[in-house]
């Protein structure tokens, strides 16, 4: 039956050079994307305690069954495996990237790619329809190892297509195409096993979190290239086209822009660059709200968000503009290297005098004054040193947390927040006052980076917004899921915080709902986060009615024939999240580790101490006052240790996990159809108990 699947998943073993396929039907109950990735990882990695750099680590790159069709914003590829970045334990983790890769995997006839083992020399994998080869990437072969990411991709384009002159039709594989191969690769940072190295595709699509660039490097895998000439079969083409046309009409009208209209094109690009350089907006395959750009100089094409302001000391446009590509070309995660995002940690230590040439923390070979003054040379030296692990760059390539641990500054700076990491040794993009983000992250493997509730629809009266959320958040339908009452600076509001606010059972329901929603409706179907997170309530839609979950349900049915309700999907999401939880349990996760850095529990007053919630005075946090709802400012929010610990217990109870350890239990696992998972946890002494 035509259902969005091609029927086979590619499996490549770099140790044995064996190329084989997995029948998609074996994993179809997990649907695609993250669900399949977790299940495949579970089956293929017997020892979940291995290090991310271990050859036995398996990396899955999974599109969704919707990829390569007309379902909007489904061009992303979900990447999973044991990471190398989080501290002290690098969890089994996820990342994803956009562009054209996911669609090409489908058009080539594959539902996903699984990589295991380690090649004995640098290699790259080429997929052209059903023909898969492992090729020599070293100097003796195709000479890719050592190249920047753009040079790597262009070199591979020439090799795969035999220097084809576009835009003519290329006869290749089983047919013809006018498209270029989709390549995902590592730069020098990944080659040098950077824990903060990324996978890069195109000019600016990248899998940033988890250090998968370093994982690829540890496998001697430089790149994967895919080009397809085939079809993705869909269950109901007519329904799919109609659903997409109807959806298009409900979105922005670029010819008649309205205020607040659904995410206008190009908004992800942080326009300082866009203002300077002539450009046009571009988007991933199947996109409905293109957020990238390509510029008249061909510089920093497709970069956006944090990438365009990482070098915050730069003051002139030519340097701002000229340093963006560095992180893409070398393949580095800006959340650690960004001088902006990391709270200028390096610069603060330098200012304090403990970091510098010949100082207690020797900064060589970094030209610190150049970096302070925001010069092009400073940025280049900085990125180069980290990628190639030179001098202090070797410390930084381990991630800022491990660097600070080595320098002996971590403990003190985690007390004050100068080391700006709430948990697991990684920078988080946001967390407070929308605690769903902080809690969801600490109960998972990384900064969740899921914006579904990060900004409230303040264009609606508070009680109206709450009513809408309550309707959407089935099966709980509890209005207090969205209550942000916290204990207050003097602690006098603790009763409300526990009863209905951030430490309540209602908040546990919100986090549980959100874990389930994102694991299935977001990361298994691979809807672009930036897009879908605007779908619950939409400021631009008539009557602000968001497209979630109706759009996703329609697209899933039209492509795959699967007729899932919101709750069917949430149940699947719960199964997937619990499987992930079991993997973390095997990696040694217990509730003692699910705590924030000390600064998160402090009000953050005084010099050098950050405010956990950022300090905004904007009234954007809904709060119940006993008789009605209103938006209040909560930019001074911080957590109470005991209250949060008690809240964790509430969450574990809701999930059916051991309240002493946070580990999943047999009844919970078996109810989800995961008996074999319970058996393994028990065998390894990691199974929780409800007693």
């Amino acid at each position, binding site marked *: 039956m035509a259902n969005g699947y091609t029927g086979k998943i590619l499996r490549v073993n770099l140790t044995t050079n064996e190329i084989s396929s997995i029948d998609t039907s074996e994993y179809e109950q997990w649907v695609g994307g993250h669900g399949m990735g977790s299940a495949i990882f579970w089956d293929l990695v017997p020892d979940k305690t291995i290090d991310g750099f271990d050859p036995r680590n398996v990396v899955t790159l999974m599109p969704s069954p919707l990829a390569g069709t007309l379902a909007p914003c489904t061009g992303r590829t979900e990447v999973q495996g044991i990471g190398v970045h989080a501290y002290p334990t690098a969890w089994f983790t996820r990342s994803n990237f956009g562009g054209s890769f996911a669609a090409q995997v489908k058009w080539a006839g594959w539902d996903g790619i699984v990589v295991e083992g380690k090649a004995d020399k640098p290699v790259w994998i080429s997929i052209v329809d059903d023909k898969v080869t492992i090729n020599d990437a070293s100097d003796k072969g195709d000479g890719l190892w050592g190249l920047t990411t753009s040079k790597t*991709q262009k070199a591979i384009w020439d090799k795969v297509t035999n220097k084809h002159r576009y835009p003519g039709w290329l006869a290749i594989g089983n047919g013809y195409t006018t498209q270029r191969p989709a390549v995902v690769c590592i730069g020098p940072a990944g080659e040098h096993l950077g824990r903060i190295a990324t996978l890069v595709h195109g000019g600016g699509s990248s899998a940033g979190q988890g250090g998968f660039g370093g994982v690829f490097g540890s496998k001697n895998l430089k790149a994967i290239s895919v080009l397809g000439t085939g079809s993705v079969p869909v269950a109901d*083409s007519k329904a799919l086209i109609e659903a997409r046309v109807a959806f298009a009409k409900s979105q922005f009208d670029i010819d008649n822009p309205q205020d607040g209209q659904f995410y206008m094109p190009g908004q992800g690009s942080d326009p300082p660059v866009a203002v300077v350089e002539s*450009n046009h907006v571009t988007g991933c395959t199947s996109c409905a709200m293109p957020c990238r750009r390509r510029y008249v100089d061909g510089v920093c094409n497709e970069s956006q968000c944090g990438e365009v302001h990482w070098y915050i000391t730069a003051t002139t446009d030519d340097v701002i503009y000229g340093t963006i590509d560095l992180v893409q070309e070398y393949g580095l995660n800006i959340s650690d290297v960004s001088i902006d995002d990391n709270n200028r940690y390096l610069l603060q230590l330098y200012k304090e005098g403990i970091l510098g040439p010949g100082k207690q923390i020797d900064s060589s070979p970094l030209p610190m004054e150049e970096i302070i003054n925001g010069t092009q040379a400073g940025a280049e030296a900085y990125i180069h040193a980290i990628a190639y692990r030179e001098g202090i760059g070797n410390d930084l390539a381990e991630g800022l947390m491990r660097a600070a641990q080595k320098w002996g500054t971590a403990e003190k700076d985690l007390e004050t927040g100068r080391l700006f990491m709430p948990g697991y040794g990684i920078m988080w993009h946001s967390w407070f006052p929308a605690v769903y983000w902080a809690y969801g992250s600490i109960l998972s493997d990384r900064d969740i980076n899921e914006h579904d509730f990060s900004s409230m629809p303040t264009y609606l009266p508070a009680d109206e917004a709450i009513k809408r959320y309550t309707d959407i958040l089935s099966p709980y339908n509890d209005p207090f899921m969205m209550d942000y009452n916290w204990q207050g600076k003097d602690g006098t509001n603790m009763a409300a915080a526990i009863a209905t606010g951030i430490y309540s059972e209602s908040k546990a329901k919100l986090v549980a709902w959100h874990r389930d929603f994102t694991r299935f409706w977001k990361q298994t179907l691979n809807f672009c986060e930036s897009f879908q997170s605007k779908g619950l309530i939409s400021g631009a839609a008539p009557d602000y009615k968001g497209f979630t979950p109706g759009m996703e349900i329609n697209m899933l049915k039209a492509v795959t024939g699967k007729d899932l309700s919101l709750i069917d999907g949430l149940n699947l999401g719960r199964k997937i999240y619990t499987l992930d939880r079991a993997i973390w349990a095997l990696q040694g996760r217990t509730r003692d580790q699910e705590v924030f850095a000390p600064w998160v529990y402090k009000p953050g007053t005084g010099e050098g101490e950050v405010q956990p919630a950022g300090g905004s005075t904007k009234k954007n946090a809904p709060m119940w006052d006993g008789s009605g709802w209103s938006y209040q400012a909560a930019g001074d929010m911080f957590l109470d240790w005991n209250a949060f610990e008690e809240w964790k217990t509430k969450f574990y109870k809701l999930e059916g996990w051991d309240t002493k350890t946070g580990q999943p239990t047999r009844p919970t696992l078996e109810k989800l159809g995961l008996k074999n998972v319970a058996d393994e946890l028990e065998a390894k002494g990691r199974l929780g108990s409800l007693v």
Partner: protein
Amino acid sequence: MVDENMTKEESKEPKEPRTFSRRRFLLGSGLVVGSAVAAGVAGTTLAPATAEANGDAATIALAPAGEVVQQPVAAPQTACVAVAQSEGYLVVDSKKCAGCLNCMAACSLAHEGEANPSLSRIQIVQDTFQRYPNDLQQYQCRQCTSPMCVQNCPTGACHVDTANGNVRVIDQAVCIGCQTCLSSCPQTPHRTIWNPTTKKASKCDLCLNTPNWGEQGGPTGKQACVEVCPMKAIKLVTDTPSQMETVGYNVNLRKPSVADLFMDVD
């Protein structure tokens, strides 16, 4: 003009629609039937009254029955011949296009029932590293005023659909897969496309024949690519675009308000 491919039977009698008919052959070979001169034919009777038999809308005047049309003898074989112009054309704006390829997915789904850019009759080709505006180009069928694919198709499969606004279409039932239309298209990439599974050619028909979509197509109807494009970078127009280079087909579809999005206005 006598074509060596024409059989003796076919030269005598009109045939049913959608088969290798003489009239269809004549149209397929680019001849104008009626007042224009058929080059190089002396004293041949052009078969009259085939329009009614074929049931086609008679937009072309035929010589009265039985009249012998005197033709000059030495007229050049290379004379350019015109066919009725299409009443609909797609124009695009490659500075507005975001390279999302939704048009390609919609086209292949509407026509073939599966999502495959290689089966799309509109092609978007891009290089993520190139300098704007050279990073991306949209390549749509131009519904040429002088369509070489139509002229050179030996079976008439590729023809002018006079019942539907003169859109240049390829009849899959008639196509024999000779691939002549692929090399006839003067554009790169050729807009006539090849299906290696069915071994037939197809081309943009302005969505006249979309078994997998419920809307009416053609010059007075809707096109799947136009409907799904998030940037409104494809548009159906009815005036024949300039045939010079791409000036008529790659146009500015942007409103001044795109300046607010930091896009180029011109």
